[in-house]
């Protein structure tokens, strides 16, 4: 780890002022400290924002749910409101990382987490995402890389919360140092590498997340993560399914550079409220129809498919076995 300047912001204004001076925001610090230790993040200025008080909390009003970005994964996962009204979100928090990490990791930090691609994370591979000339995953060890998307970088988006965030038709509010606020819909928040190679979302460096909200809570929802290890491990495929405003949203996680909306599956489910096994199976097949696996990860297509079938059945209150 490089030595860095460390500032502690006590309020939003302080945090934004620091961002303007090119400080990197540290909430739980889980990912940022890893990136600094690995010398992938080269910034020498860090501002701690975890003490900013009005950025933490969960509230529900008029059928809408608001989660402030510093709320921890444990707090969201164990929240009665979230459990009752948005099971996919609470489950995706409780499936993430380890109890110790969930205690400090924030919702915002999870959404903004950098990819776990081992080429990106290792100094000796000067990959595309770090400004190098090639994606080493293309003909390298790509068992955990993307099975959707056309590159040029083949990461999978690492966030556990992101699929539920997109499936729940969420949106974030951000503010910059000039005090300009904007609302970004989940579908527009994450971006593919052909549009933005060095960042996985549209948040600017001087912007601070101030809210994660779901204007209309889902009638039904579920999140299913398929993991190799049952404890601390990133999923090898996941799916969040949510029935919002009478329409199913089916979003795959950990299989593409961004949360992957399975439009073909959603079309198939149009007009249906409760999904049975036959329909869930067809929807799952539709969801992976356009998968383009790499040299060593074709097996994950079956896992993505299983996650869709299971998430739809779970959301419909049915056993998937």
């Amino acid at each position: 780890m490089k030595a860095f300047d460390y500032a502690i912001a006590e309020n939003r204004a302080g945090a934004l002022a620091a961002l303007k001076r090119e400080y990197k925001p540290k909430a739980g610090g889980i990912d940022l400290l890893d990136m600094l230790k690995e010398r992938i993040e080269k910034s020498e200025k860090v501002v701690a924002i975890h003490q900013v008080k009005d950025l933490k909390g969960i509230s529900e009003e008029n059928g809408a749910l608001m989660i402030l970005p510093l709320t921890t994964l444990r707090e969201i996962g164990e929240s009665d409101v979230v459990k009752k009204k948005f099971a996919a979100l609470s489950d995706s928090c409780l499936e993430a990382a380890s109890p110790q990490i969930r205690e400090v990791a924030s919702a915002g930090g999870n959404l903004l987490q950098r990819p776990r691609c081992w080429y990106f994370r290792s100094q000796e591979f000067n990959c595309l995402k770090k400004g190098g000339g090639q994606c080493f995953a293309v003909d390298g060890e790509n068992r955990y890389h993307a099975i959707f998307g056309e590159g040029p970088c083949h990461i999978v988006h690492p966030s556990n919360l992101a699929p539920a965030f997109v499936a729940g038709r969420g949106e974030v509010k951000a503010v910059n140092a000039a005090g300009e606020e904007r609302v970004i819909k989940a579908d527009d928040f994450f971006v593919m590498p052909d549009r933005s190679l060095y960042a996985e979302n549209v948040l600017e460096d001087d912007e601070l997340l101030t809210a994660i909200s779901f204007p209309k809570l889902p009638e039904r929802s579920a999140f299913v993560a398929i993991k190799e290890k049952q404890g601390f491990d990133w999923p090898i495929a996941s799916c969040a399914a949510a029935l919002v405003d009478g329409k199913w949203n089916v979003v795959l996680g950990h299989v593409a550079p961004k949360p992957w909306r399975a439009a073909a599956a959603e079309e198939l489910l149009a007009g249906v409220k409760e999904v049975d096994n036959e329909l869930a199976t067809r929807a799952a097949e539709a969801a992976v129809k356009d998968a383009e696996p790499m040299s060593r990860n074709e097996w994950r297509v079956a896992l993505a498919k299983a996650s869709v079938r299971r998430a739809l059945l779970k959301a419909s209150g049915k056993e998937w076995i």
Partner: protein
Amino acid sequence: MSVNNNVAMENELPRPDVDEKVSGRAKFAADTFPQNVIYAKYVRFPYGAGKVTRSDVEAAKAVKGVLHVEVNAEKTAQYPGDQVGKIAAESLQALKDAEAALKLRFEQDKPRTEPMKFYEGVPEPKAEEKEALDKLFAEADAVIESTYTTQVQTHSCLEPHGCVIDYKSDGAKAWASTQGVMGWEDGLAGSSGHPASKVTVDATYVGGGFGSKFGMGAEGNLALEMSKKFSRPCRVVLDRREEHLDAGNRPGSIQYFKMAAKKDGTILGGRQHMASIVGFRPGGGGVAENWLQYYKSGKVVRTASDVTLNFAIPRAFRAPGHPQAAFAFEGMMDELAAKIGMDPLEFRQKNDTSDRRKKQYKIGAELIGWKDRKADGAGKGIIKTGYGVASASWFNSPGKCDADVDIHSSGEVEVRVGVQDIGTGTSAVVADVVADHLGLERATVTGKCGISDYPPGPASGGSFVTRTTAPALKDAAQNALDKLKKAVAAEWAVAESDVEYDKGTFRAGNEKLEWKEACQLINGKIAGKGSYTDKFFGEGNSDCVQFAKVEVDTETGNVRVKKIVAVHAMGKPVNRLTAENQVYGGVIQGVSYALFEDRLLDPHTGGMVNADFIGYKIAGAADIPEIIPVLDVEENDTGARSLGEPVTVPTSGAIANAVANAIGVRVYDLPMTPDRVLAALARKDKGATA
């Protein structure tokens, strides 16, 4: 040697150092920061093969606090992590900044990364052997032919390799993470030029070794060099990445079997070829052949070879050569049984050479619920349950140990032995053997180990620590007790032979003294000495069997181990909790080996892509099944026998057999990850069987 080798106790006391360890007060080598300490590390080549072509040594030297930088541009590096330079600095920060400032550039040679590309296949046997084999296969009712592979596993000790050395002109002191404190002292004495009497090594607490921490190693050599050069204590402690790359690994294997059997279950024999996937040069591999003793295996023609890859050479790893062998031969046994239509347990009962294991099969089968085992792949639904069994044995190699037992006038008993507790609970054994022999409470006895100035004890390898230290401890305790008896006899003016001793009480006629009263007769302390040199301490091998129950998700290929029953003969357990701990630990390591651990190399550059604990997956708490340790102690068992290694040998084989039983098709490769399970299921759809 007149020591009664019957360790009679089986106490259930927790380890004496448990508070220190769970509270963080225990000081490991990496917790040692002597005044004025400096830091050193190797500069490492990141890829499979090549040379350093450019390095900014001047820039690295210019980093504030940097003391020494050298880069060897002449050296052809042969594995990721190979040492191509050295840095020393005032702080860890300066050390790492200097490393970054070097801005190394490399020239890469094409590395050898894929075993199957370099595997030369099964060699033709000699003409007469081939003829005999052909005849045998022709006579057989069933012949199976399979190739199994196992991965490279890194040692992944929780405490990294490392040490702190304080070299002075008149002696040297070291704090080391080692499983052989006496050998470390010899190494330090030899390398420093100081006599052993002027050298002390402290390994009071050690966080795992598994065979990778014998001797000073590269870390010790560097710490000594820099401590000498700068006349200051020097720390060299590896980081997790270095641990994976250059601190030990279990070689992988490619194992071929063509075996024949009769319908009645008789194994006729066959052909076996064992290729070891080793480091950048041949050697260090080897697949164990003990199964030939476990089972009546008929005539087997065996050959072996090495496949070299650009990686660090293997080190001894808990039961070297055995877990990889067990995975393959236990699979082969089940394949033969399936081919002749016999239950695999019945097939083993028929062919096992050990009566002890034949008994253990019955115990294990009962506890795992073998009667619920269905035909291969016969379960309904997406989640399928399976049962499997595998076995092993361990021998008793020769060992030596000396020990001191002091009885103080306060009544306290102090034990010193130059063995180390690498996490196995040896410190409990050291105290408990003496407490038991003297018939005293553990609280009266302080067991000390891990310091090289103590009487020489064994290195922690070959599963011989308990069975060589226990008799030496008893010998020393008896020696000290005899001296105390003598003092009591003198006090009472009776013959020594008239003094009786039982559990802390001395008696002769009407005279009686309790332990503390008797000890007041001592001037300062009584010094008892003990030693042991022998091959056996207790008769017989440590036979064992393990049973596994698994659930396989046939839609995702995920394997969950639900339960392991581990039945182990090991003489008499000295301390039941630490003995059971060994079983738990071995089984957990076996589960992790069966399902998760795998060193992955980038096929083009040869860099290890998962040199951390995120990409290199190790079983966590949620992955660990219910484990039922059965310490199989029979009336006639004496002494303490081997345990630390056999506990991890059969686990992966039992799990693999359970997986094959669950899904009706065999997974031939470790680890059994979802992709491999799904591929096996796809083969089944094309007609393959278990």
